[in-house]
């Protein structure tokens, strides 16, 4: 076993242990934290970091021991890191919709209401709907 492989082995092992611990922390926080909005934080941050760490470990493993660069892991990592905030926002909006009313949240301070509680808000601005390219 060469020196590079020795170093890579330690790096991969460290990343795997790091990722595993973070995944357990994320899943345990989902069980243990007292409020729903707090429980939202544990899987979306800690578990995503854990799985990203495991994916990078796999990428280094295939680069060093199999001799081929595997871009799939980087794609999956990027995809997960991009979609985790969107998922968290959607779940937070669903939770607000189910449990809170307009009076429970602080004022936004920008002139419009919270979009979740505003009955007048539409998904698309009517101006944009009429703004078509000329045929």
């Amino acid at each position, binding site marked *: 076993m060469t020196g590079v492989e020795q170093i890579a*082995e*330690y790096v*991969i*092992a*460290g990343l*795997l*242990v790091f*990722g*595993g*611990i973070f*995944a*357990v922390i*994320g*899943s*345990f926080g*989902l*069980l243990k934290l007292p409020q*729903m909005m707090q*429980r*939202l934080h544990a*899987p979306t941050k800690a*578990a*995503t970091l*854990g*799985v990203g760490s*495991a*994916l990078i*470990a*796999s990428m280094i*493993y*295939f680069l060093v*021991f*199999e001799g*081929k660069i*595997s871009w*799939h*892991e980087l*794609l*999956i990592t990027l*995809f*997960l890191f991009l*979609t985790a905030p*969107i*998922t968290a926002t*959607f*779940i937070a*909006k*669903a*939770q607000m*919709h*189910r*449990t809170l009313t307009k009076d429970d949240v602080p004022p936004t301070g920008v002139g419009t209401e919270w979009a*979740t509680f505003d009955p007048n808000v539409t998904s698309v601005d009517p101006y944009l709907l009429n703004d078509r390219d000329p045929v």
Partner: protein
Amino acid sequence: MILTYALDFAFLCFGLGLAMNLYRVFVAPGVTDRILALDTMVINVIALIVLYGMRTGSGINFEAALLFAMTGFVSTVAYCKFILRGDIIE
């Protein structure tokens, strides 16, 4: 040698996380907790697929992991959309 032990440890950790998420899917105070637990299950299963690919030394599983990530994201968003609006595609 240390890599084998680290891989075993990672399998154990992600499996434990998956079991905790499964418990949360069945026993939860609200429906949003169940959605969140399902989303976390998808993340943990992706990690397990990738770890299995490392153990067997084959890269054939990564397409499955990528597809699983995409379907997991779309299903979570669709479920939240259904709770918010009572409909998925309006």
